[in-house]
C-alpha cells in the first residue's frame, strides 16, 4: 500500500525520486543514474499485443534473468508508440534505439546482441523506404518527425500500469495545483483561454461546456468521459486509455472540481478489454495514493470515478444516448436542448467530454493556456490525434498541430500511398464525415476548414483511399454502417438512411438511374436537416461529399454501367480470349449461373447479361484465356 499524497510538496518529492529511475528514457540524459542500466520497453497497445508483444515481454524477462541481468535491465511495457504498421515495437534506453517488426524468435538475438554485446541489431531497425537507410532513433523516422505530442505525450514512454511512472512525468501535479491554488472559476477561465475544443467530433469549446455545467444550482453534478469510440477505423481514445490512463483520471478530477461534481463516470466500449483493464488498475492506484476519493490533496474536494461498459452501439457516442445507456436503457438519443449541462445523468447537470479532450487538460494547466494557444490555427488550438489507416504505408496513430496539411500527413508522416498507387481521397470523420480529394491536400486542417470542404474533423479517423477504391462502394459501406447503427427512433434516420443505402446498392449493381442521384441529394438534405441527433444529421455526408467530388464515378455506374475502380462486382464482366480458349469446359462447369456456353473442344463464350462477375471462371481457367475486367 502506497502512502496517500497529502500536498504538492509530497508529490514533488515523490516525483523527483521516481524521475531518477526513468531518467534514462529522456534522450538528453547521457548516463543512467538509475539502479537499472537499461530499459527495454515493449509496446503494449492492442495492435502490438495482438502480435504477442506481452508474451515477448515474458520471454525477454526470462532471457534477461537467465543471464543474471535482471538487476541491471528493466523489461517493461508501455502504451502505444503509434507506428502500428511497424509493430510490434521495442525500444531500448538509454541508447534510444527503436526496433520494429520484432518477433518472438528475435528476442534472444536482441538480448544477446544489444544488451550483452552492445551492438545494435541492424535488421530490426526501421528502414526508410526511400533511402533504404536503417534508422536507429525514433525521431529520425519520417513518421515521427512532424508529430507533436501533447495528448499522446506519455504513450510509448511510461508503463501505463505503474502510477509512479506517471508521477515521474509530473502526473497529478496539475490536479494538485488546481485543488490547492485555484478556485473553480479560475480553472474554467484557463480552459476558455486555452481555446481547447472537444476532440470527440463536435468541436465545442471545453471551457464553455464546463461553464454551462457549473452554472446551474444542483445537489449533484457529473463528469462523464466518453470513451465509446465507435468510428470504425479510429483508435485514438483506445490508445490514450491503454497508454496513459492516469491522464484521463486526473483531468476528470480537475473537471469535477471546475464544475462542482464529485462523481465521474467513464463510459467505455466493451470491445476494448485492454483499455478497461488498464483503467481499472489506474483507478485503484489513484485511490490508493489519494488522487481519487475523499479530501484529495487535503483540499476537502472529493471525487469518485466508476467505469461503465458500452455494449456495441455506435450511437452511444452521442452524449444523450450515452447517458441513457449509463442509466441502463436503450441508447436512444433525446432532443437537445435541454443539454446535458442542464439536464443530464439522472436529470442532473452533466459534462460529457471525450478521452482526447481530457488528455490535453493536465498539460494545459501545467504549461498555461498561452502555451496551448501557441499551437494550431486561429480557431482551432493545440494538436489533434489522428488514426491513419487504409491504403497508406505508415498506418498508425499520429498527433500533429492543428493546421497541418493533409499533404504533410499523407506523404511525410504517412509515407505515401501503398504500392505507389495514385492517391484518390482521404475519408475523415468516419461515417459522419466526407472525402477530401487531391484538390484540398494543401488545406490546413482544422474544424472549420474541414467543414468548409464538406467533411468534418470527427474523432480523428483518416482512411486513405487510392485509385482502386470505388467511391460508391465507400459511400455504400458507410451508409450500411449508419443504417445498421441507427437507433431507429426518428423517421429520417431510420428510414431515410435505409432508402439511401438501397439506392447506392442499386447504383453499384448497375440498376441506378439519374433520378436516383436526385433522390440521394434530396434525402441527404432532408436527413441532415431534420434528424434528431448528430448520427442522423451527419449520416448523409459520405454520400453527399462523394457525389460532389466524384460525380463522374456515379455517372459511370449509372450511365455506362461500369465501375472504374473495378470494385463493384455486378459491374465486372468477364470475357474469353478466343485464341487462347481450347474448349476444356472448365470455366463452364464452375460458372454458378450457367453464363458460359460452348461445346467441348470448341471456343467458349460468356453471356455478359448473365455473368454476375464472380470470377470463378477466371480462377478455373488454366490457359489464361479469360480476361478480368
Amino acid at each position, binding site marked *: 500500500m502506497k502512502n496517500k499524497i497529502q500536498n504538492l510538496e509530497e508529490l514533488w518529492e515523490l516525483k523527483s525520486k521516481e524521475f531518477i529511475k526513468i531518467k534514462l528514457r529522456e534522450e538528453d540524459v547521457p548516463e543512467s543514474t538509475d539502479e537499472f542500466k537499461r530499459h527495454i520497453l515493449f509496446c503494449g497497445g492492442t495492435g502490438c499485443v495482438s502480435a504477442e508483444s506481452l508474451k515477448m515481454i515474458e520471454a525477454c524477462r526470462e532471457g534477461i534473468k537467465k543471464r543474471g541481468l535482471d538487476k541491471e535491465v528493466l523489461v517493461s511495457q508501455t502504451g502505444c508508440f503509434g507506428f502500428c504498421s511497424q509493430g510490434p515495437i521495442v525500444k531500448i534506453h538509454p541508447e534510444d534505439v527503436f526496433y520494429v517488426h520484432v518477433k518472438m524468435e528475435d528476442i534472444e538475438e536482441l538480448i544477446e546482441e544489444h544488451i550483452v554485446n552492445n551492438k545494435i541489431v541492424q535488421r530490426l531497425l526501421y528502414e526508410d523506404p526511400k533511402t533504404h537507410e536503417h534508422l536507429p532513433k525514433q525521431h529520425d523516422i519520417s513518421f515521427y518527425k512532424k508529430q507533436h505530442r501533447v495528448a499522446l505525450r506519455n504513450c510509448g514512454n511510461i508503463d501505463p500500469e505503474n502510477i509512479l511512472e506517471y508521477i515521474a512525468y509530473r502526473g497529478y501535479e496539475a490536479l494538485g495545483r488546481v485543488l490547492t491554488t485555484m478556485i473553480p472559476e479560475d480553472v474554467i477561465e484557463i480552459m476558455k483561454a486555452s481555446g481547447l475544443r472537444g476532440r470527440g467530433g463536435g468541436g465545442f469549446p471545453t471551457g464553455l461546456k464546463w461553464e454551462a455545467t457549473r452554472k446551474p444550482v444542483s445537489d449533484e453534478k457529473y463528469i462523464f468521459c466518453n470513451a465509446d469510440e465507435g468510428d470504425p*477505423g479510429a483508435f485514438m481514445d483506445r490508445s490514450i486509455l491503454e497508454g496513459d490512463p492516469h491522464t484521463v483520471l486526473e483531468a476528470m478530477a480537475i473537471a469535477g472540481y471546475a464544475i462542482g461534481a464529485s462523481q465521474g463516470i467513464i463510459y467505455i466500449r466493451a470491445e476494448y478489454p485492454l483499455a478497461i483493464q488498464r483503467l481499472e488498475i489506474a483507478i485503484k492506484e489513484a485511490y490508493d495514493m489519494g488522487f481519487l476519493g475523499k479530501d484529495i490533496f487535503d483540499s476537502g474536494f472529493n471525487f469518485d470515478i466508476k467505469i461503465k461498459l458500452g455494449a456495441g452501439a455506435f450511437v452511444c457516442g452521442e452524449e444523450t444516448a450515452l447517458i441513457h445507456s449509463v442509466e441502463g436503457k436503450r441508447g436512444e438519443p433525446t432532443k437537445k436542448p435541454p443539454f446535458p449541462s442542464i439536464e443530464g445523468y439522472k436529470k442532473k447537470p452533466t459534462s460529457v467530454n471525450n478521452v482526447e479532450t481530457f488528455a490535453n487538460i493536465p498539460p494545459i494547466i501545467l504549461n498555461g493556456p498561452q502555451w496551448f494557444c501557441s499551437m494550431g490555427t486561429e480557431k482551432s488550438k493545440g494538436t489533434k490525434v489522428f488514426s491513419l489507416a487504409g491504403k497508406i504505408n505508415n498506418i498508425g496513430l499520429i498527433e500533429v498541430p492543428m493546421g497541418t496539411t493533409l499533404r504533410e500527413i499523407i506523404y511525410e508522416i504517412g509515407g505515401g500511398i501503398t504500392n505507389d498507387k495514385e492517391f484518390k481521397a482521404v475519408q475523415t470523420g468516419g461515417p459522419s464525415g466526407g472525402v477530401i480529394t487531391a484538390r484540398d491536400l494543401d488545406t490546413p486542417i482544422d474544424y472549420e476548414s474541414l467543414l468548409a470542404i464538406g467533411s468534418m474533423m470527427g474523432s480523428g479517423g483518416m482512411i486513405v483511399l487510392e485509385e482502386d477504391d470505388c467511391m460508391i462502394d465507400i459511400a455504400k459501406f458507410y451508409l450500411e454502417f449508419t443504417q445498421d447503427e441507427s437507433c431507429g427512433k426518428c423517421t429520417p434516420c431510420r428510414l431515410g438512411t435505409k432508402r439511401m443505402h438501397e439506392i447506392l446498392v442499386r447504383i453499384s449493381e448497375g440498376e441506378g438511374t439519374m433520378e436516383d442521384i436526385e433522390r440521394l441529394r434530396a434525402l441527404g438534405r432532408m436527413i441532415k436537416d431534420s434528424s434528431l441527433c448528430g448520427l442522423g444529421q451527419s449520416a448523409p455526408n459520405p454520400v453527399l461529399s462523394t457525389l460532389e467530388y466524384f460525380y463522374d464515378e456515379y455517372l459511370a455506374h449509372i450511365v455506362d454501367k461500369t465501375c472504374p475502380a473495378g470494385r463493384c462486382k455486378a459491374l465486372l464482366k468477364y470475357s474469353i480470349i478466343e485464341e487462347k480458349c481450347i474448349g476444356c469446359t472448365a470455366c463452364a462447369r464452375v460458372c454458378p449461373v450457367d453464363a458460359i456456353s460452348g461445346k467441348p473442344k470448341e471456343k467458349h463464350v460468356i453471356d455478359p447479361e448473365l455473368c454476375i462477375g464472380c470470377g470463378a471462371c477466371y480462377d478455373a481457367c488454366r490457359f489464361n484465356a479469360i480476361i478480368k475486367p
Partner: protein
Amino acid sequence: MEDVYKLENAEELLPVLDTFIDSFPNKKDEVIAVLHKAQDLFGYLPSELQLYIARKLDLPAAHIYGVVTFYSYFNEEKRGKYTINVCMGTACFVKGADKVMNEFHRILGIKTGETTPDNLFTLTDVRCIGACGLAPVVMVNDKVFGHIHAEDVPGIIESYKNREKEEA
C-alpha cells in the same frame, strides 16, 4: 422463471449472478453491467435468463429485452465453440475484409451471425477492433490473425478443425 434452472450449470452460476446484482445499491441503473455479467457466465442471454434478470432488477421483461436487442454485444443464441469475428472496420474493409467474409460464408456454409450445425463455429462481424495496422483482421475467440486474405481462410478453419480432432 423456473425454466432458468434448466440452463447449463444454472445451479452454480445463478448464485454468482445474484451476488453480483446484489452488490449494487441502484440495481436498475446496472442493467447493462448485469447483462454483461450474465453473458460472461452463461455465454449467451436466453429468454429465461433475461426474465430472471428482469425479476431480480424489478424491471419489466420487455425493458430488458429492449436493451438486449439494442446492443450488438449481447447475443441471445448459444454460440459455437469458436467465434470467428471478421473485422469490418473501414481500414479492414478497404483492404478487402468483405472478400474474407465471403470466403468464410462459402466455406462454412453459414451467414454472418449464424453457427455451424456442429456448433463449432459462429461467424460474426465486428466494427473495428482497433488493430488497423494489421488490416484485414480476423479474431477467433481471443486470437488475432492479421493481414488475412481470402486465401488464408481455409487454413484458419482447418487449424481449428484439426485442433478439435486432436482433442477428441
